[in-house]
């Protein structure tokens, strides 16, 4: 299952559609699981009338969680050493997100084989919503 350093090369990519037509209900589900009940993510009345946004929007951490699913599906379970992102644009109900990882380097450190990945998640308009990097342990 795990990736092998010997079979990877710089520039290799893996991408997945991590959510299609994101529902407000899934955002609520994330609020409940994570414990972050900020009304900006679930309360349309507050968000539009008091906070001045066009609608509720997803937690940044939901878009990171969705992106992480693509990563673990590719590199395997318990293989990540590091995963970091910037939230570059908001994710709205109805959005469809594609997450992509690209191999930036393959290296050895302290006897471990590692792969450096760059990550980008884009919405249905091609706009980037998450940008980041990860390091995963791979087999030789």
């Amino acid at each position, binding site marked *: 299952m795990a990736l092998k350093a010997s079979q990877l090369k710089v520039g290799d990519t893996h991408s997945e559609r991590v959510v299609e037509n994101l529902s407000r209900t899934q955002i609520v589900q994330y609020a409940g699981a994570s414990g972050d009940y900020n009304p900006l993510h679930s309360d349309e009345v507050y968000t539009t009338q008091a906070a*001045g946004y066009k609608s509720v929007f997803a937690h940044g951490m939901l878009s990171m*969680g969705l992106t992480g699913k693509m990563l*673990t599906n590719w590199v395997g*379970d318990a293989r990540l050493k*590091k995963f970091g992102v910037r939230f570059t644009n*908001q994710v709205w109900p109805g959005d469809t997100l594609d997450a992509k990882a690209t191999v930036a380097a393959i290296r050895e450190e302290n006897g471990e084989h590692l792969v450096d990945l760059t990550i980008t998640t884009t919405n249905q308009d091609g706009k980037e919503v998450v940008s980041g990097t990860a390091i995963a342990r791979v087999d030789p």
Partner: protein
Amino acid sequence: MPKIAFPVEATHIMMFARAIGDTNPVYHDAEAAKKTEAKGVIAPPTFVQAVAQFDPDYHLRPKPGQQWFGSGKTPTGVEGKPASSGGLHAEQEYTYHRPLRAGEVLTSEVKQGKTWEKESKRAGKLIFRERITEHRDATGELVVTARSVGVTTERPVDAS
């Protein structure tokens, strides 16, 4: 900031994985998980964000008898609050020292990091605040280190 005891429970992991649409059995099926390299149920990479559930003072959870800034009879339950977005999440980074397993109890401690400012066309003056959360196991060893950067905006982010 006080240390928080963070029990990592199988049901919570299952609910969290559901919320991110992750059907990987390693997050919900103990028998199937035993046969994987992880050798048991583990937490998804962003799970430690749910430490908020165990922070008694977490400000983004309504509490009985306290005013809540979301809508009720009126669009916001807190009078006089400026029509600002409050805080948004700008960056998040995790360092994994080892897999996080169902059944452990972590001790989580938040440390304030740097603060800086920036001007933005989309949202006015931005104030960034960094926080480092160390999640340690029963022996005091680090399991996950989380670095988060929050941003307070002068006005709602222009989404156009």
